[in-house]
């Protein structure tokens, strides 16, 4: 049952929020031991929220557009009085004294926070294998990763543990696991969703986004969590985009471009699997059949995004993660002096990938290396923004794969960080440019695992990319993605 249908039934008094919660808790109890989507199932909080929703309906009040809908929340989103670990030992036991803005907005919309989902430690990774609490598994094949870093959220939605989930996307961390788990994932325009209460990884790239099983469900969730927040200075001073109203507009006459470099074209990224390219081309053909005007668009700097990203994101992370020093909260490993205590705590509390990126970022920002690394990466970022702006002069939206491959096996890429980083090659440009993108399931690969197609648009083009995604959703539902 979709989130929209569930909320409608609860608002109409046809279903009880508590019953809906219990159904989902039962599914979690049955299968999360295997999937490990959750770091924590917040049954107590969820039950009290569900009871309030039912009470409101009984009293004739409207609990809101997500009445009684369970939502799984990535465990890097602050929840008052509830552990928020970022899947790191360094934050074990920390209880935030406040709720993230998205948590407040979910509460006001009648949503039920069902649990905190697993992630790669501090959102650094593409498989959840970097979680300090063990990886999550792909519900379609538990021998495969669910993607990452929001792998727990993607798996929770794919496994039916919650109709909706919240993730964060810094380089593809919502879209890539959505693609690998066969669900919808959205990276909104930077500044559409408040980052207040999202534990920072790379502040200029981080954006909270929805997971859902349908475009319409993703739309309602974004409408609820989006919109200006005075507590986030980078928040766009506008209300959330109106999406549900425009989903059925169709693509007749719309200009759609395929990013040559990311779709098997010449001079493009190597390593994008043929089945993934084939599905992407098929999606474009479907849009053309639906009335869109399709063209190939070259965005040469798109392939430089990966290198720029792996300097900018670690640089910001090295600073954002400095505060975990053992002084005020989280893990402290005692040592004779303050400095030694800082080092001991951080050495014990952070996993290898986090340490790798802190070192990378520290180096990139160091005097003498700044210009060659961080400074140059910023220039590439500017170049990418310029190239995408030029592309959007010619087309309304762009299409590419979301992930170069379908879900891979555990341990397949952990030995080689570069092989893992390449997973993000298609998703990173949107984070660097601040533009929105959506990944929608479009058929399966040769291995039978889900493939996602990505629709990208210019800043604040959410209504447009959601419209395009809806057309593809219809095509896939009618068996057009086989």
């Amino acid at each position, binding site marked *: 049952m979709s989130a929209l249908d569930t909320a409608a039934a609860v608002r109409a008094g046809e279903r009880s929020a508590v019953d809906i919660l219990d159904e989902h808790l039962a599914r979690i109890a049955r299968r999360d031991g295997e999937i490990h989507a959750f770091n924590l199932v917040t049954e107590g909080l969820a039950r009290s929220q569900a009871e309030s929703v039912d009470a409101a309906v009984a009293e004739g009040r409207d609990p809101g557009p997500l009445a009684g809908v369970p939502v799984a929340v990535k465990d*890097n*989103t*602050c929840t008052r009085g509830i552990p*928020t670990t*970022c899947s790191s030992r360094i*934050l074990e036991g*920390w209880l*935030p*004294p*406040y709720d*993230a803005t998205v948590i407040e907005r979910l509460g006001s919309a009648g949503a039920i926070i069902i649990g905190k989902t697993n992630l790669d430690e501090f959102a650094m990774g593409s498989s959840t294998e970097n979680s300090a609490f063990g990886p999550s598994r792909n519900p379609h094949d538990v021998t495969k990763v669910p993607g990452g870093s929001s792998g727990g959220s993607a798996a929770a939605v794919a496994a039916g543990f919650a109709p909706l989930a919240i993730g964060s996307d810094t380089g593809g961390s919502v879209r890539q696991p959505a693609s690998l788990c066969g669900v919808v994932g959205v990276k909104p325009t930077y500044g559409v969703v408040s*980052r*207040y*209460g*999202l*534990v*920072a990884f*790379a*502040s*200029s790239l981080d954006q909270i986004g929805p997971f859902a099983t349908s475009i319409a469900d993703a739309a309602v969730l974004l409408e609820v969590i989006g919109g200006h927040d*005075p*507590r*986030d*200075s*980078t928040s766009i001073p506008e209300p959330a985009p109106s999406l549900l109203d425009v989903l059925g507009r169709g693509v007749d006459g719309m200009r759609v471009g395929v990013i040559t470099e990311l779709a098997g074209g010449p001079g493009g990224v190597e390593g994008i699997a043929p089945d993934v390219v084939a599905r992407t081309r098929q999606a474009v053909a479907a849009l053309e059949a639906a009335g869109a005007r399709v063209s190939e668009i070259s965005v040469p700097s798109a392939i430089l995004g990966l290198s720029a990203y792996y300097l900018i994101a670690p*640089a*910001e992370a*090295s*600073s954002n993660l*400095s*505060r975990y*020093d053992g*002084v*005020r*909260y989280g893990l402290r490993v005692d040592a004779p*002096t*303050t*400095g030694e205590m*800082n080092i001991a705590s951080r050495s014990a509390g952070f996993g290898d990938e986090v340490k790798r990126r802190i070192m990378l970022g*520290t180096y990139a*920002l*160091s*005097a003498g290396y*700044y210009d060659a690394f*961080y400074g140059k990466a910023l220039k590439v970022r500017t170049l990418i923004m310029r190239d995408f702006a030029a592309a959007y002069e010619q087309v309304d939206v762009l299409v590419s794969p979301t992930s170069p491959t379908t879900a891979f096996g555990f341990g397949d890429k952990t030995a080689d960080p570069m092989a893992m980083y390449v997973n993000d090659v298609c998703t990173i440009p949107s984070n660097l440019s601040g533009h929105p993108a959506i990944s929608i399931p479009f058929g399966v690969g040769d291995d039978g695992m889900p493939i996602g197609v990505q629709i990208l648009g210019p800043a604040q083009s959410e209504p447009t990319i959601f419209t395009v995604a809806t057309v593809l959703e219809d095509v896939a539902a009618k068996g057009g993605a086989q």
Partner: protein
Amino acid sequence: MSWSIEPTLPEGWELVVGLEVHVELSTATKLFCGCANRFGSEPNTNICPVCLGLPGSLPVINGTAVKYAMQLGRALLCDVKPAVMARKNYFYPDMPKDYQTTQYEQPTNSDGEVVLPDGFTVGIERAHIEEDTGKSTHIGGGGRINEAIYSLVDYNRAGVPLIEIVSRPCLDTIDHAKAYVSGLRDILLAIGVSDARMEEGSMRVDANVSVRPVGSDELRTRCELKNINSIRSMARAIEYEARRQIDLYTSGERPRQETRHWDEAAGRSTPGRSKENLDDYRFFQEPDLVPLVPTAEEIAAIDAAMPALPAARRAALVEASSADADVVATLVERGQDALALAAIGRGADADKVVTRLRHDLAVDDFSKVSAESFAALIVMETSGDLTATQAKQVLAELVDSGGDPRSIAAERGFEAMHDDELADLVDRLIADNPDEWQRFVGGHEGDRKKMQGFFIGQIMRATKGQADGRAVADLLAQRGRSPANGSPGT
């Protein structure tokens, strides 16, 4: 203003000093959150997720702090430009995020100056916005962080808005350094953006000191002096450091670039961190904040609302009175320049105005003395309606209780003692005392002085002290020079 005697450095050496002055802005709330910006609260009571740097918290800049910073920038004659916040990364337990949010390559204010009372111009490199840190207390181990048994941190001060004012290394004497810091304080108080109290730490001075041979324009290795708690302490610390460096050079050694900790009680500094391995703060643009872009309208509004600043006030008083620079500086520092200008504007004699203010109004509270009454008093004195002695007495009463100087003079019987009236009295006295008069006219110097005293005393007695002794002396001298030399003309 206290004009101390400049300590003399050994022959052939001169000072090069640049000052970094941190000033806490007196905003109601902190720089990035709504917590109270208050000194002296119980530890860790003015704190929240933002100023504690808790995971997930985000800063929102305090618009009043930015406005205060721009006001200060304009008062320091700086260029006020679009600015970018930056992160300065280093680990310290009293810094909640382990980075300080500050301004680096694009500060709000740059390229300004402060003109000292003697006309010396101090160049201002920049005056940028940043956040303060918390405050650590290290227990045991001599109060040093890495030897302490434990440390306590109070985060009330974390996130308090600061302006760091960086002068160019252009201060050439200790007196100029002192005049610069007190000049800055005067400016801060005039525009009301800080209470600028060094003893409470709301104004903190670090001094970068080097020396060089007189006549050279090189910049030699400098040491940064910290823990300076007053202007006096700064003067001592700079002098100590200059002598220390000169001693090193003259004995064939060289100072190391380092931070030194001033010990006021011991009267010496001790080395802190060596700066040979320069700290790498890995500055980069703060991604959680957007650039601060002042509009032309905002700057125009700040300029329009700018009160008269000390340098301009000194210039105005010099223009109106032609008084010496140090006298003018004193009056401006006491806040008496407005009174002086108003009195002069009402026709009071400028010299007399300055003299009375300088010598007879050296009091803390002169609020009851209105410009109107002060001007009237000076006019009465210069026109001879009051003697100098009487004028001082009336002024003292104005300070105590205010009022109209004419009524005060009348109440005290300080009635007009005009020149012709006084002359009649003098002539009568000469006629009544011919022997004394002869001794005055014909006697030698000693007799003359003695008899002058006699006549003045008689006049004072007759007038109950209302006569002006000097005027009497002038009349006696004049009568003594007349042709007859005898009794006045009949």
